[in-house]
Each structure stands twice: as C-alpha cells, then as structure tokens.
C-alpha cells in the first residue's frame, strides 16, 4: 500500500518519528535509480557514484525536515544530486591539482577502465564524447537525452532559463555528433 504514497504524503510521514525511517526508505527507493544514473553519468565509476549518492541521501535525511513544499521533491533531489556530483568533480580537480582538461582525461580513463569498454562501438564513443563536454553542458545533455526532462523542470533543477538550457543542449548535441563522426 505504502508503495503508492505520493511525495506529499511521504513528507508528512517523515515528520512523524514513528514513520520517519520507513518513509525515508520509500523516498529513497522511489528515486534511487534515477538519481544513481544521473550521478553515474557525471562521475563515471560506480564507486564514486555510490559515494556521491550515499552522501547526498545523508544530506537529504538531515535537510528533509526543513524542505519547503513550494518546490517539488523530485526537482529538489535532482538539484542536490547535480550539486553533489559537481562538487565531487571539483574536489577531484583540486586533489589532483590539474587543469580542467586533465580531469576530462581522468574521466575518459575511468571510462576506458570499464571492463566492457569498446572504442569501436557507437554507444561507447557517445560516452567518450559526453566526457569532453564542459561540466554544466554535460548535465544539461544527460538530463535531456537520458532522463527526457522537460526544459521547464530542468530550469528549476539548474536554476537557469529555459532558453539558455535549450541552446546549451543544442550545442552539446552538435559537439557530440562532430566528435563521434570525426574520431
């Protein structure tokens, strides 16, 4: 029964000590896969994605009591996942004390380290091309291409105008296509 509760009901239950954990588990189960894949496409390796996902849910647990219901839980969670992924990549950049292009190389290397990696397959070429995009353009591309997120919702997640997002997505598609065709 509880599997079908909507977000608003889950939030009400979360505020009750007796149902706090069970409602949190339901929220987590409801969104975990979508958020995992969103993060995974940003940070590439499973271990990094798992760290980022768990940390973000720990923060969600702490902040959910104060969540304002004038925004949707779905967009709020995506925003946290995006920010946590970008923060993780920023830390990686600082830790290795390298330039941005070297972080791209790092992500490309993680991609190549995957046991199924095949440079001749189109779907892997696509992943390699995505890693060449600037971080925020990569977020926009992934949200639109994989999650099929409407620009209106994406605008709330990324706090950017719909027009700018559309332009960003179109640029990203063209860059990816060029990379695939010329590599």
């Amino acid at each position, binding site marked *: 029964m509880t599997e079908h509760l909507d977000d608003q009901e889950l939030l009400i239950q979360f505020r009750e000590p007796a149902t706090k*954990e069970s409602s*949190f*588990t339901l929220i*987590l*189960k409801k969104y*975990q*896969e979508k958020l*995992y*894949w969103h993060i*995974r*496409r940003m940070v590439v390796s*499973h271990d990094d994605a*798992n760290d980022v*996902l*768990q940390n973000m*849910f*720990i923060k969600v*647990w*702490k902040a959910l009591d104060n969540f304002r219901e004038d925004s949707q839980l779905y967009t709020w969670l995506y925003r946290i996942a995006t920010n946590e992924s970008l923060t993780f990549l920023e830390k990686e950049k600082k830790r290795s004390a390298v330039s941005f292009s070297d972080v791209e190389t790092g992500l490309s290397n993680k991609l190549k380290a*995957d046991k*199924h*990696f095949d440079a001749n397959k*189109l*779907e*892997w070429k*696509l*992943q390699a091309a995505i890693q060449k995009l600037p971080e925020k353009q990569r977020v926009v591309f992934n949200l*639109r*291409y*994989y999650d*099929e*997120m*409407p*620009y*209106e919702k994406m605008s709330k997640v990324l706090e950017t105008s719909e027009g700018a997002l559309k332009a960003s*997505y*179109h640029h990203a*598609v*063209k860059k*990816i*296509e060029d990379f*695939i065709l010329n590599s």
Partner: protein
Amino acid sequence: MENRNDILDEMKELSPTLAAIGNVNVFTVPGGYFEYLGADILKGVEIEYGLVADPAVFVSDTHVPAGYFELLADAVLEKIKADEIEDAATEIKALSPMLYNIQNEHVFEVPQGYFENLSEDVLNKVKPQPKVINIQRHTSSFFKYAVAAAFTGVMALGVFKFTANTKDNIQLPEYVSAGLQVQNVDQELAKISDVEIVKYLEASGTDVNAAFVASSIDNNELPAQEDYFLDDEALEKYLNSINLDDQKN
C-alpha cells in the same frame, strides 16, 4: 464547356424518368449558416492551435473573441509547454538521428543487488550510533593535566622564588607574564603530544604504567563496594582486565 441544356438532354437520353424529376435540392441548412461559416472555420483553427484557452469566451458576432488578447500570451505559453513535454525524443530525432538511434543503449553496469541494499546502507549511516568512550583520549587528558600540574608547580616555585627575593614590585619578564596569563588550559595542553608527555614523566622518574592505570579507570566501571567483601581479589581482577599495552597505543 457543357451548358445546362446539354447535360439535361444527355440525361433525357439516358433516363427520361430521372430527367423528369428535375434538379431539386432536398437538403436544407440552418438560417445564416453560410454567413458565419468563414468566422466559424477561423475559430476552429484558433482552438486547434491553442490560441484560445476556452472556446466559450467567443462571441460570434465580433471579429475578436472576448478576452482574446488578455488570454493570448498564457495560451501560447501553455501550448509551447505542452509541446515541450512530448518532445525530448522528437527533438533529438530532429537534431541528430544518430544519437536518437542509440538513445537506449546503456553501457554502464551496477553490482548485483546494489539497489536492494542501498536504503539499508544509508539508514545505517544516518541513524544515531551508540556513543563510544575513547579511553585513549581519557589517558591523554590525564597526562596533560599531570604535566600541567607539574609545570604549574615549577612555574609557581620559580615565580615565588623570583618574587620572594625582591621586596619591591618588580616587573616580571615577558615569558613569565605570558605563562601566568594562560586562560584556556585545555587549549594549551592540546598542543603537547603524548610522546613528549611520556618522555617528560620518564625523565622526572614518574611510574608511567601506574599513571596509565590511574588515567584509564572509569569510576563507573570500578567494582561495586560489595564486590570487595565477596571477593578479596576483586580489584586485582579488574586491573588484570585492563590491557595496558592497548591503552598506550
């Protein structure tokens, strides 16, 4: 071009019966139908393309529906948004048919059972954990206070000696004043490492092991008063239960 008479003559030849019925239209249309037909078609076009939120707002005998311009912007935006929702796939198909064709190819894998266990893993991290008393920290504090007492003693003696030999109010050297002005003993002691403390105690002839025992005893854990009556070796057993080597590490 054939005229009407030619067509009638043709019909007479083909079927005199039909020709005799004549060309009479048996159907009728509502009054004024053709007068408003053009306006009605335009209305239909506007509704179809989402330019009017509610067809009921039309007043058929005017050129522009009532409230048309007030509602126009909202209606257009609504239409654009409705198009957006359906269009992530259509958009990529138009932008790049190649990317559209591989859209559902997923290359990454997830360890088996990962999602089944994730919620439990996260809950274990967010639930409050039982408090663990850090004996090592206890020990360090003891030593630091012991050393503080020793230093204070030395300093007090030094200052006493210094001031006792003088009859006038002599200004103290800066390093002595600084020592006397230490407000936060904990903060100052935190700067001293355990190794330095042990070295100091050994150099000053203090029994380091005894000090470890004393510092690691938690009053709440000591045997109860009646235990001493029941068992002469209660304290000895308790002391043996403490591994001093572990405490040092």
